[in-house]
């Protein structure tokens, strides 16, 4: 391309007069109508764009943002990838030039972006840089998944390990996952707790575990996961440490002398793995009479039916339910008292909590799912079999845990733990000690992409098959590689493209790929913020308290995304799909009256406003305040999470919006924002952010449709505008506009997926890979399989670079464009 360089250099030197420059642009734009000529037009525009639009501020006198383009030329692009990628992003997001300055028109802007991306891709092709992730520790979600796959038990990682520090919106970024003494302390303790829970313990001391109803629910109807024919209640998977007697105590239901909710019979049933083990009834005429006549004594007697319920259970995880039998409407008065959203009396009893104590008189530990998993290889029948079997069991689990073949040195240390435990209390104790050591081993805690042999700094090398197996499984499963991946790695075949494609398809078909939706998806879409947005009960009684929808919203988006991935839909379906998953609560929130019950099912949405992610309650709520909508947050959400062009952070000392005052005429958020935008320091950013959010104003802060502003009593105005000037009047038009050019969305999703898959922040040198993946996925309409496979087949995923000390850029540009 030397010719191109010459032409552009000439233009920089020659084109100084503004008149000349403008003339040049007019020609360039006029000459280029068909997309095929974009490249040619780009060359015509090229570097001179900087002097036309940027160097008024970004020059060696002003150093706006620490960047001076007048001191640079096209030759400097490869040495300033960070700055140039930011240029592209700022232009894509219409954030530069700032409002009030001379603007390139749409076609010129597009042509320049395309030209600059071409240059950057060229630089990338000449100096491919797959970067380096380095030592990466398991985060606590991965830890829980790994334990599930290794030992066959589900644990609550938040109860065992400290919170992981997120970076760049993701909680699996290697550089942010530090190890502190308090982490290590909890991590070692967790290893012990987890293995004891998995193996069971016939000598377990009696312990009590309390379960509380945390799911927001009125308990008026059937709950998902509970047996049919019941209403309300709590279902848990309880881990019984040993075969033996256990005692159930259910929280009091007759609370006081005042006969409240006791008018009618509430038949209660307790089931263990679906079989009723206890039944009683609370309330009804007899109980009423007794309370009326005997007061305290009767209350105590009634509650006694909920106490000291003894039953036998075998070791392991069992499904345990305390619920009420549901009566038909003919025999029940449950619904005679009207359902009042967020409160009101409804005259039924609820299971608020119960606790299980035990074991008493433990007789042993019988076969459990976890033990079957642990002792899959063998269980000794005679003393002579013990040591060989221990070897097999421990080696098998260590291989999975370390993601590589186990060495003699590995086994030497682990068998030492076995021997210690064996001497103290026999085979099981030996295995328990050794498995605890496996989990405490840094080879389980950390993964590394370091080359097998030291290589000089800057060397690019293909990661080995075991590293690849882990990358693949942690990307698609958030968990350890399985036996098949390890066997392929052992055979040295995993990196073969055909094999990789097969494995991506296999891993995606496995239920564990739900982690792409409920882990990656929830973080990408900021649904992890929902627990903090506690909707104001005085404003949104229909979405707070017992009508809280936040868990349901997360479930909806998880199922929605998982369905698209599982059926190999297009990633664009995320924005446009008319299907979603709802239960009765969400359906009612969406003004759909035909869905009954607590469990989710796939439906087609008649109302096109709800199609795609931007119509989902969870997304609309994650971008709102607890007490009102925020077009600013929603606009920023679309710019950042959908289009990948996050707006800059607000400057310090920004005056906030004034809220409506009692006694004064109420205004809409839109009107107040318009006031805000009148301030010059606010205008340039908010004129790009707010109008996107306005198009979603037809949904309140909980994602419920509304047509009138409840305070101002005026009709909601959802007229908005995209940064490029496209007018969008409602959510349908917003969606159509976003889909008209799908590349920004797909590119953003690809960037997020790469950051998640590698565990590092995407940098400028990744962008050529990103753009190549997006281009390669366009042919079949951006199907999920294709996109994910292209990511896996990209050198960014398959290779790594030995880190080198940072070098100074050829030209000193502080490169802190914000």
């Amino acid at each position: 391309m030397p010719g191109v360089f010459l032409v552009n250099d000439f233009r920089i030197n020659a084109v100084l007069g503004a008149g000349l420059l403008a003339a040049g642009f007019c020609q360039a734009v006029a000459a280029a109508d068909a997309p095929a000529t974009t490249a040619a037009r780009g060359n015509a525009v090229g570097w001179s764009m900087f002097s036309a639009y940027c160097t008024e501020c970004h020059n060696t006198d002003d150093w706006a943002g620490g960047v001076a383009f007048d001191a640079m030329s096209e030759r400097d692009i490869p040495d300033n990838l960070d700055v140039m990628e930011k240029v592209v992003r700022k232009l894509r997001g219409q954030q530069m030039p700032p409002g009030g300055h001379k603007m390139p028109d749409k076609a010129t802007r597009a042509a320049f972006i395309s030209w600059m991306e071409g240059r950057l891709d060229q630089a990338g092709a000449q100096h491919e840089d797959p970067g380096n992730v380095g030592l990466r520790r398991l985060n606590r979600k991965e830890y829980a998944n790994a334990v599930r796959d290794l030992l066959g038990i589900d644990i609550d990682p938040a109860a065992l390990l400290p919170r992981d520090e997120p970076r760049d919106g993701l909680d699996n970024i290697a550089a942010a996952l530090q190890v502190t003494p308090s982490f290590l302390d909890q991590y070692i303790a967790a290893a012990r707790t987890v293995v004891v829970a998995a193996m069971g313990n016939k000598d377990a001391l009696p312990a009590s575990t309390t379960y509380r109803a945390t799911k927001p629910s009125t308990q008026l109807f059937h709950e998902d996961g509970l047996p049919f024919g019941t209403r309300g209640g709590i279902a848990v998977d309880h881990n019984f440490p040993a075969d033996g007697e256990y005692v159930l105590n259910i929280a009091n239901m007759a609370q006081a002398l005042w006969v409240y909710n006791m008018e009618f019979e509430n038949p209660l049933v307790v089931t263990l793995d679906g079989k009723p083990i206890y039944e009683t009834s609370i309330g009804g005429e007899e109980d009423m009479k007794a309370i009326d006549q005997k007061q305290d004594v009767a209350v105590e007697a009634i509650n006694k039916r909920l106490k000291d319920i003894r039953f036998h259970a075998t070791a392991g995880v069992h499904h345990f339910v305390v619920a009420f039998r549901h009566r038909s409407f003919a025999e029940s008065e449950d619904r005679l008292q009207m359902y009042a959203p967020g409160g009101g009396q409804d005259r039924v009893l609820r299971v608020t909590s119960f606790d299980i104590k035990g074991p008493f008189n433990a007789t042993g530990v019988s076969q459990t799912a976890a033990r079957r998993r642990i002792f899959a290889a063998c269980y000794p029948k005679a003393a002579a079999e013990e040591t060989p079997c221990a070897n097999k069991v421990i080696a098998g689990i260590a291989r999975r845990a370390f993601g590589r073949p186990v060495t003699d040195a590995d086994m030497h240390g682990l068998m030492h733990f076995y021997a210690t435990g064996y001497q103290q209390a026999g085979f099981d104790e030996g295995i328990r000690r050794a498995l605890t050591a496996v989990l405490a081993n840094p080879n389980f805690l950390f993964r590394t992409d370091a080359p097998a042999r030291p290589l000089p700094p800057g060397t690019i090398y293909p990661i080995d098959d075991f590293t690849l197996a882990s990358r693949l499984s942690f990307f698609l499963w958030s968990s350890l590689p399985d036996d098949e991946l390890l066997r392929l790695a052992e055979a040295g075949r995993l990196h073969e493209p055909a094999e990789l494609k097969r494995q991506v398809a296999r891993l995606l078909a496995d239920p564990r790929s739900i982690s792409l939706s409920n882990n990656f998806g929830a973080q990408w879409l900021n649904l992890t913020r929902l627990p903090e947005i506690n909707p104001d009960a005085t404003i949104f009684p229909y979405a707070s308290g017992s009508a809280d929808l936040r868990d349901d919203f997360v479930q909806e988006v998880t199922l929605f995304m998982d369905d698209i991935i599982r059926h190999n839909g297009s990633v664009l379906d995320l924005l446009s799909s008319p299907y979603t998953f709802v239960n009765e609560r969400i359906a009612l929130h969406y003004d759909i009256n035909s869905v009954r019950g607590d469990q989710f099912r796939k439906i087609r949405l008649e109302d096109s406003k709800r199609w795609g992610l931007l119509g989902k309650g969870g997304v609309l709520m994650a971008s709102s305040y607890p007490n009102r909508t925020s077009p600013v947050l929603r606009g920023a959400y679309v710019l950042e999470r959908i289009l990948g062009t996050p707006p800059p952070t607000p400057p310090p000392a920004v005056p906030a919006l004034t809220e409506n005052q009692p006694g004064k005429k109420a205004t809409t958020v839109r009107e107040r924002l318009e006031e805000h935008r009148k301030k010059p320091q606010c205008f340039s950013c908010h004129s790009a952010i707010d109008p996107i959010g306005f198009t979603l104003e037809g949904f309140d802060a909980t994602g419920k449709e509304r047509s009138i502003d409840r305070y101002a009593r005026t009709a909601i105005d959802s007229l908005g505008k995209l940064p490029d000037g496209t007018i969008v009047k409602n959510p349908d038009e917003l969606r159509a506009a976003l889909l008209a050019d799908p590349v920004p969305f797909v590119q953003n999703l690809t960037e997020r997926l790469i950051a998640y898959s590698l565990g590092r922040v995407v940098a400028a040198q990744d962008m050529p890979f990103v753009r190549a993946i997006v281009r390669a996925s366009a042919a079949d309409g951006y199907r999920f399989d294709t996109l994910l496979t292209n990511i896996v087949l990209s050198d960014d995923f398959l290779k790594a670079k030995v880190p080198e000390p940072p070098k100074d850029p050829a030209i000193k540009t502080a490169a802190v464009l914000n």
Partner: protein
Amino acid sequence: MYISKKFISRRTVLRGAGAAIALPLLDAMIPAATALADTAAAPMPRMGFIYFPHGAVMKSWVPEQTGTGYTMSPILKPLEPYRSKLTIVSGLRNKGGESSDPHGIMAGTWLSCYGIKDRKDDLGTTADQLAARKFGAGTPLPSLELTGEGGAATCSQSGGGCGYGSTTAFRTPFQPLPMEDNPRKVFFTLFGQGDDTKERKQILGETGSLLDYAMEQGKDLDTRIGAADRARLSDYLDSVREVEQRVQRLATSKSMTMDLPNAPEGIPDQFADEVGALFDLIALAWQTGQTRVASMMIAKEISMRTYPNLQITEAFHPLSHHGNDPDKLAKLVQIQNYHTQLFAKFIDKLAKMPDGDGTMLDHAIILYGSNMSNSDLHNNDPLPNAVLGGGYGRITGGQHLHYPQDTPHANLLLTLLNRAGVETPSLGNSTGQFAEL
């Protein structure tokens, strides 16, 4: 959610079934625990750094008069009973916390007084950690980091990561120490896993051998990885070493022979109970000598908490952008006063806790403050600061000091450290110490 506990302690009935998980930890502890008397020639104070986010409404924080005879301000009113052990320090500025990314770095620069760029040596290490280095040498735990509000981290928008927004404690300029919100985990960190002395001892022994193994395996891993990875692994090896030390000290600690209360069950539902439980754990840790240094955030930056008990249903952070609206300011003062009430309960416990020849409050040095001034402007000047405790008579107390414009906040931290006996020549952008304190 589930919570699990063993009921093998002799003190089984601390609370009835179904009761709220309030924690009468201390009330159960005080008679049983023997206070750790410090008989050394130069006794070492306990140091606490208690942070609240979103600054303060300064006209309701700063008393009108200075000196000793001042009238207590509305926000600090709950501390009136401890006036003689209270020093209000006004007028300070923290340039290290200034940025266009206010909440993202506010917590992380409070105790270091140094911005997040150009950190090196100890520029960026926080005051509590400097104290922990000295005081931690003899205790099972060098320091304790707690937060009254867990959930998603508050992150820097300008590349600083989330560490600077979510913790006030930096062990080194680059190593944030995460803050724990689960009282149960804190209890086990302090006293070891297990439900009675026998089980604690047994688990401690097992932990010791696991740590030896982890160290040996870590060193082996160290030989197989590149130079860049080695820096990350060294954090791991350092942590193993520190926890090994902790285990050794814990094994011989007095707490191993004490009849400890049951571990808390989990994170209490109510904010007041949660903050109360964490304060109790700090007091308990000081009393039993598990650590001498504690830092805590009462709530987190950009907290969206509402305060229904105060009839405030707006979320804290949006409310903190008050726009000088009198109604919002009044509500903010109410919230800030409430935080002081929760803090004052902690102070009250310390005032009643015998410690050697006096009370724990006589011997502690506690900073109560925020790294923000006016939350509507996100500025760091002038900061709200209150110092509690006598520090073994090294802090005068009973006065309101007002320093001139632009006096560095770092000077206060430097003064507190040196008074506590942590000889420190400078901290962040400090220029000197306060003789008046």
